[in-house]
């Protein structure tokens, strides 16, 4: 025991520490026990889930992308009206949603799908994920103008424009005139000022690629992107990174004053105590995204799904959409927030590409895009 002998002062202290540790272990065990008794997710949830499954006729399951959300109480109103309880399942983002629906079409995740956008709409219809249904809601007439390829399997619910946004403050400070068209972005004065999300990994990124396809044609967009790249284009992974990290007008005070975002983004940049947003959308650079809902093939409760789809087109939901999902309601009778009318109007002539054309070419376009832009 030679080495303990050389540290005579040690043993009492380590004994003390050990007893303290024992106490703490006991305390932790007790805490864990309490946590187990009271805080288990499985423990508290299984009972209610059991109910939900056994009375499936009384519930309708909505499969939505992860941006879906409505104000408190709205889905309760639906339950009051119809007696149907709504379960919401959000298995992924907008881009992932359709592929998940395609994969699970033999055993669908729910009854109604919401959030399929026009870049994926044809695939959903072609794969037979959704079944035809014609809504009788008043807003259905407004929705009809966005019908995909003559099919009534998908019903438009809301829409939005993906546009180039600019940071007014930055341009004022630098005494530079703001760009206004897609072509402006390739000019030398705007070198190193633009950031866009990746078209492969982000749905607004894909929308902007489609805008350029719409603007320059199936054979012209490649040249445009080559010029953009030569002009110092920055590609961020997603909208969040582009807007919050690289964009000078977003949350992160980044270095670039031009970003790809939404027509509805500017109202969110009204500074505290101010009246005007510090950013604006370039309405000649937009691609229109339309989000659809559709009754899933093989739904357990197709009638419930139809009722819920009608409800999504009701004024109550349509009025709520701008505030919670930052999209424009498809209904012409819905009311928009005041600042939207002023600061976030829709583009009058957005670029567009036919959904079936998108479905046919998307992978090839993305491959080309990657080749040109990422290299």
């Amino acid at each position, binding site marked *: 025991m030679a080495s303990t002998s050389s540290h005579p002062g040690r043993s009492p202290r380590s004994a003390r520490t050990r007893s303290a540790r024992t106490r703490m272990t006991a305390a932790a065990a007790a805490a864990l026990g309490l946590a187990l008794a009271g805080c288990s997710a499985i423990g508290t949830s299984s009972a209610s889930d059991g109910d939900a499954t056994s009375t499936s006729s009384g519930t309708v399951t909505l499969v939505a992308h992860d941006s879906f959300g409505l104000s408190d109480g709205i889905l309760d109103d639906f339950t009051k009206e119809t007696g149907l309880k709504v379960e919401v399942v*959000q*298995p992924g983002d907008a881009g992932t949603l359709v592929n998940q629906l395609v994969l699970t079409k033999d055993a669908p995740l729910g009854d109604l799908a919401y959030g399929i956008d026009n870049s994926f709409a044809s695939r959903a219809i072609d794969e037979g994920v959704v079944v035809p249904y014609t809504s009788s809601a008043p807003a259905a007439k407004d929705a009809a103008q966005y019908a995909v390829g003559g099919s009534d399997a998908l019903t438009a619910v809301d829409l939005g424009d993906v546009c180039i946004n600019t940071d007014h403050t930055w341009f004022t400070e630098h005494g530079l005139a703001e760009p206004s068209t897609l072509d402006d972005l390739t000019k030398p004065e705007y070198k190193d000022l633009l950031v866009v999300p990746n078209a492969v990994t982000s749905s607004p990124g894909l929308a902007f690629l489609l805008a350029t396809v719409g603007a320059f044609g199936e054979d012209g967009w490649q040249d445009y992107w080559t010029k953009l790249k030569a002009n110092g284009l920055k590609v961020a992974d997603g909208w969040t990174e582009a807007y919050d990290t690289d964009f000078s007008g977003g949350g992160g005070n980044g270095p670039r004053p031009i970003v790809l975002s939404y027509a509805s983004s500017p109202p969110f940049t009204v500074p505290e105590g101010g009246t005007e947003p510090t950013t604006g959308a370039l309405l000649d650079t937009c691609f229109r995204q339309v989000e659809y809902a559709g009754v899933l093939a093989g739904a357990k409760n197709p009638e419930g799904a139809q009722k819920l789809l009608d409800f999504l087109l009701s004024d109550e939901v349509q009025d709520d959409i701008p505030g919670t999902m930052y999209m424009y309601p498809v209904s012409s009778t819905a009311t928009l927030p005041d600042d939207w009318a002023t600061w976030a109007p829709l583009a009058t002539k957005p670029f567009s590409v036919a959904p079936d054309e998108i479905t046919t070419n998307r992978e090839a376009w993305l491959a080309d895009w990657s080749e040109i832009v990422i290299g």
Partner: protein
Amino acid sequence: MSTATATRPDLPVTGGPGRVARPSRPSAGQVLFWSAAVAVPLLFLGVFFAWPVVVMVGRGFVTDGHLDLSAFAEVFSRPRTWRIVGLTLAQASIATALSVLLGLPGAYVLHRRRFRGRSVVRALVTVPFVLPTVVVGVAFRSLLVDGGPLGFLHLDGTFAAIVSALVFFNYAVVVRAVGGLWERLDPRAAQAARALGASPWRAFRTVTLPALTPAIASAASLTFLFCATAFGTVLVLGGLQFGTIETEIWIQTTQFLDLRAAAVLSVVQLVVVAGVLVVAGRARSRQERALALGAPSQTVRALTLRRPAGRPRGDGHAPALAAAAVTAVVVALLALPLVNLVVRSLRVGDRWGLDHYTALGTTGGALTVTVWQATLNSLRVAVDATVLALVVGGLVALVVSRRPRRTAGRRAVAGLDALFMLPLGVSAVTVGFGFLLSMHHPFGLDVDLRTSPVLVPIAQAVVAVPLVVRTVLPVLRAIDPRLREAAATLGAGPGRVLRTVDLTIAARSVGLAVGFAFAASLGEFGATSFLARPDRPTLPVVIFRLIGRPGADTYGMALAASVVLAVLTAGIVAACERLRAAGAGGEW
């Protein structure tokens, strides 16, 4: 004073005529127990990991009911595939090498030396490991972006940025795994070398380093697994330019629904991961060679800036200082993004304030629950995941800690060990999509597990099990078999031996295991994001949703919520650190 992990021939062996006859035939109860100990974890892993993965990968290889392996030829004929495999290996190897190089001085300073605030620093370095990648991405990129605090380095969007982020995540893995062993390593072996004329550097290189090799190998393999399957970090910091197998699986699956390519890539990933596990397993098994271990109280020395009076030059003080300096720089660099996060969460417009923290009590207009409710959800899910991981991981560790007499048995045990590491090395997308395909009425049961909240803690437990195993196993392996024999000679049945010896001693490491399982569950986002239901989102899911909305307020809220997650994690890790009994080190 010192214990050995293997038999020490210089101690009298309990044996001979007085020895209690080895039970020649195990009782029915024993057979039942050990069968269950093997079967329960295997069943768990099989149902909640292997089956979903097989179903998902199978989709890619079966066309019209026939096995079709032409996808291999097709995928491997693409130059892109080879580039991606190369990038994956390059990123993971470089990041692993750097993590080890920086982690070794860190392990020495944080585990072999004593100084004020050491436990705080130890908790701090663990925080990055569990932060959601989306948060780290924002915190990291806003530092590196042009005009950011580190913008002058022009690292944004470079390979170097990805590698440094991977090191940021995995530094703690090396520090903890190596430090856990180092603090118990008997310093006298190195002293013997010094007395034989070896300089401090030579003694380290030829004596200490070989003794640490198993722990280094173990840490490196874990780090490699984490790096090779890094997904969010790579996309956020490097984009597709530096795509890896993992990001490619994600793109092929979620964006292109090219399941054939995804399946091939999953197999490639599995092969790479299995290769790493085999190499690591070999290196780890060398740990079973006798190592003289001491209690940390005897091996840990105080860290002083000045050379202690009476200690000559060239006696290892300078290298110790160098290690301290390297560690200080690394910790400062680790802290930068974290500090950045905190600072930015306190910025409200042009002023400072707690507004974003106050807003955590609201839904921020974008969520279905408040952030505090999501925090509570996270904690609840983490409790379930931790209990599951402890039970399953504990059983695995118990089984793997045995050394069967027959070679076949030993191989089976080693295989089981490697098997439970696999969840760390398989794409979360493959597992997540696999759940969607396989958890509908599993085994014909009338339950749709895909949309059940029960699946979330299970998915997290699958990831936490390897951490529990790596933490508990070394402690169980270090139990002197003579202790069990002594208990048996005192009349204890096999069950009681297990209870009074194995479990009692393993319980000392349970605090640590609980901490890691809990932290891993709190931070898990990959599989959870495919499963979390909107009425019960976890904290990382909520942060992800907040950050995906425009507006400075939701952005600030997201940062504040990230700080809450970081503090929660650090607190839990620090608490578990205190629970860790002397000598009950963990290797993970």
